[in-house]
């Protein structure tokens, strides 16, 4: 099998695309854990076990961070379209 026919193989393309996506998602999980650990765990005392409160905080932290990114993205797109 030649390299160019390999590169055009739809199964391989799907596999590579899936791996790239997984890689991006994992990078984002690292980033979110880093931020949310500081907000919800490190600052709140005990490290002996995650409390229900810390768990909820971590879940909310992920959701609100993504809300925050969406809010900023929409606002920035608007700003660029208005040419400011």
């Amino acid at each position, binding site marked *: 099998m030649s390299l160019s026919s390999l590169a055009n193989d739809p199964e391989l393309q799907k596999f590579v695309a899936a791996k790239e996506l997984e890689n991006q998602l994992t990078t984002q999980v690292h980033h979110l854990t880093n*931020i*949310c650990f500081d*907000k*919800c765990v490190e600052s709140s005392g005990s490290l002996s076990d995650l409390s229900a409160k810390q768990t909820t*905080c971590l879940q*909310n*932290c992920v*959701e*609100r*961070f993504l*809300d*925050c*990114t969406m*809010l*900023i*993205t929409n*606002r*920035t797109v608007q*700003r660029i379209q208005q040419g400011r």
Partner: protein
Amino acid sequence: SVQQQLAIQNAQELLQKLSDKCFKACIQKPGSTLSSSEQKCISQCSDRYMDAWNIVSRAYAERIKRESNRH
């Protein structure tokens, strides 16, 4: 095009920095929704960061111009 890719990469990096900065500045305790005061803070923070980006960008360009004229 290369130009567009650069612009997209640049925009992505700006959005990433904006999210990190404004989330840290505006969300003290993440709740079940963004409160209206949190939303207002995020909007203002991102506007100010963009303003700062423009000022820094101009000041940096001027400095480089000045330095390259000197040589």
